[in-house]
């Protein structure tokens, strides 16, 4: 039994099929990558798993039990927590209070009368953003905000972490440190499902990878297997006779869709105006 099982999920927006009979799993104690070009349906899959989007068809199982019809907060109580691609930090609270609120919420009624404090700073320390603790969350850089969302999730003590493009906004050395942190978190027994565009990071930290294209899972397997898959090369590069060079492939991924990336960045900027 896998920690998370997504089974035959279909999501349609009007005439567009965003997720097309997708099935994949994520295991406890392992890092699973969910990759694919923009618009492939990765974030929509996250929304289906966390309950923010109802699928037109299909099932989601967590620890063997169906959660497809559970409301968002009940899934979280079972042990699923996520970060967001378009940031959802509590902008008018400080970084520390963002995590503190998560702690309070997680502890339920007891937490509401007995405020949490000590371990909050520990979490900030752990993801490496302690120096921003007193700043308002809508004034910190994007990369820091992503780490804040991770810290906030950890405050809810999840069994499964869903990370939506966690490394965008981080520089190279920060990304390396982040990779190590992920490995640590997984080693402690958590399952991690990650949507990520940084192929170097994906290839180095992920144990399993699922590739989505136009809402369909076109390949699943270890990084080496996925790298060699002709369908993946086609989806990423537009043609399949390119030598199977992952570093090269990563370059193309970014160069391929500049306009879309740009739109998202602008919208993120807008959110921080």
């Amino acid at each position, binding site marked *: 039994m896998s920690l998370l099982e997504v089974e035959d999920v279909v999501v349609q927006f009007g005439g567009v099929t965003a997720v097309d009979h997708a099935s994949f799993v994520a295991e406890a104690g392992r890092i699973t990558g969910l990759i694919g070009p923009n618009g492939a349906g990765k974030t929509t899959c996250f929304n289906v798993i966390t309950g923010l989007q109802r699928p037109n068809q299909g099932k989601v199982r967590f620890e063997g039990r169906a959660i497809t019809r559970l409301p968002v907060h009940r899934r979280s109580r079972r042990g699923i927590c996520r970060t967001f691609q*378009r940031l959802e930090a509590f902008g008018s609270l*400080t970084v520390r209070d963002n995590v503190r609120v998560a702690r309070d919420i997680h502890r339920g009624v007891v937490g509401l009368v007995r405020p949490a404090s000590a371990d909050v700073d520990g979490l900030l320390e752990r993801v490496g953003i302690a120096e921003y603790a007193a700043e308002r969350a*809508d004034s910190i850089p994007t990369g820091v905000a992503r780490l804040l969302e991770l810290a906030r999730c950890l405050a*809810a003590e999840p069994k499964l972490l869903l990370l939506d493009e966690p490394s965008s906004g981080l520089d190279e050395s920060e990304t390396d440190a982040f990779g190590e942190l992920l490995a640590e978190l997984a080693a402690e027994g958590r399952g991690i499902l990650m949507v990520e565009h940084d192929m170097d990071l994906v290839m180095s930290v992920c144990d399993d990878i699922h590739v989505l294209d136009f809402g369909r899972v076109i390949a699943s397997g270890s990084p080496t297997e996925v790298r060699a898959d002709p369908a993946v090369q086609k989806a990423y590069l537009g043609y399949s006779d390119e030598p199977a060079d992952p570093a090269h492939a990563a370059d193309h991924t970014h160069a391929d869709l500049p306009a879309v990336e740009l739109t998202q960045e602008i919208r993120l900027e807008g959110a921080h105006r």
Partner: protein
Amino acid sequence: MSSILSFTILGLFTGAAYAIAASGLVLTYTTTRVFNIAHGAFGMVMAFTFWDFSQRQHMPTWLALVLVLGVVAPGTGWLVQRFVTRGLGEGPVSVSLVVTVGLFVGLIGVAQYIWPPAPRTVPPFLADEGLQIGGTYVTAHQIITIALSAVVAAALYVLLNRTRIGTAMRASVDNPMLLRLFGGKPDLVASLSWAIGISLAALAGILLTPVIGLSYYDLTLLVINAYAAAMLGRLKSLPLTFVGAMGLGILQSFAVAYLPSEGNLAGLRAVVPALFLFVVIVAMPQAQLRIGQVKGIVSAPLPTLPKSLGWGGGLLAGVAALTVTMGDADLLLVGTAATYAMVMLSLVLLTGYGGHVSLAQFTFAGVGALAYAKLDEPNLVGLFLAAGIAAAVGALVALPVLRLTGLYLALSTLAFGVLMDKMVFQADFAFGYNGTLRAQRLSVLGREFSSTGGYVLVMTVFFVLMALALLLLRRGVLGRVLIAMRDSPAACGTLGLDMRWFRVGLFGLSAGMAGLAGGLFAGLRGTIGAADFQLFNSLPLLLLAVVCGVTSMTGAALGGVGLMLLPVLQSSRPELAGLVFAVLGFGAVALGRDPNGLANLVFGLGRRLDRRFGDRVRAAVPVLPLPRPRVEDDSATAVPLADPLSGVLIVPETDPPAGHRAADDPTSAQQKEVPAHVAP
């Protein structure tokens, strides 16, 4: 039998007009995510414009119709989308609600200003024509209306299903972001749908005018019927919207025909649409949490406890000074302002902290006043009991819509307001039709405050205590969770928070605060009636609360004074009555995006005065202290101060350097605060 037929035809006629209005509402909402509360108000203004063209300027009917429906209405829709509502759909629902309520009030003001009250009639189309169907005479106007609704339905179907732009419109219903990715033009889609939407509102208004008359309020409030119909289609499905509209029209027509016109059920006929709306909202499926909103609202700086106490004390001292210098008539106005300010405090909790909008806050105050008068226990027990009853009613309103969020909650308060206005407050067991109730002044611990001055002082004490309690709440765990819920419901949900009960509690608490204010108000006035708590008054209340600052206690105090002054201003210059509304409405449109409002100017005043004159004053009076550099607030919720001069969201980089952020000098700020109360 013939009476059933004739009432059915009458119902189909009004239903057809509702359908036309409702489809415009659905179109604008689905494509831009802005729910246009002012939809009916636009229809009203356009109906007046049509009257102006066809009756006052004697244009031929066809020309006036073409001008209004083809030029004025779509032009207005385009302009409004371009300059007022653009981008609102991606922000919090509370902002788009406030802005469109601003349009609502502003348009009524404009109409009253341009077309002062006078009897006006618009003849029906082809007035002398008609058909005999069985024993029933059907006018040509009715047939035209029903036929036009079919034409509108067909045209919308063709537009949405057979044209490129229509496909883009349908796509943006689900996901505007996706539309952008696939190369659509959301801006064009948005402008076009607003142009069409306002045209449809205009058409519905013009068609209904010969039947319900050219009235500012009746036509504007018709929008409730349109909401109700549109809700049946979940604000998405046009066919269901048409079904809803026709059903509602017939239901209403039958209610007029067959429900008793006397007794306690008499009010039922008038509230059929509101009941319909309420039932449909309750039956709505679970709302999905939205993600990707713009958030992080610059909150008003949270004052420290000594500072809040200082302000509170200053306010009390100011009012005490007023009580010895003013006559009873003026003191009544001060007491009224205190009432309004307390109701606005309840909005600070609900809207400023919680991000929810109530369109009927005065109704809750009315419940409190009614309970206070009926209990006839003019002491603290009676007062708190009255507040508790109002709180329970507030929770009851939120309870059926537990699963729903923002917009639906706001609309259910509107439906609730209509119900109370027309059915409960005017019933014999309440205030009675055009009647009043007597209420005693409050006594505290056996001491009765019979003088108006003393009573006003007691009210001010209540205001200060409520404000302090709110600040305490805001600093605590609950306050943090409230802010988190406002900033990102999606994140709260994925962190495991069940927001439903929080929302009910929030609504109840806020209604209780308004109820307390209502109870005190009843004691102040001695006699109260349904007219004191009309639904329509809740809208200027909401607008002034936002304009003055719905995130701070200062904003509530300013707003209370402002709202008290509105009728004073209007009765002293009746010719400007409409203009006052227009200024208020469009002011809210301009300021609605910044919840801190004018109060922020007050907060910044001390700082700016100091920057400007501080050095000179200190040179002359050397004992004055230097401005303190901003101390890191002990509560971790301390936020960088907002720059009062720029409206929206500010990142610290643009803040003045720390030295200039010096804590406001409480005394100078107080001096600015007090004269506002002296104004009348």
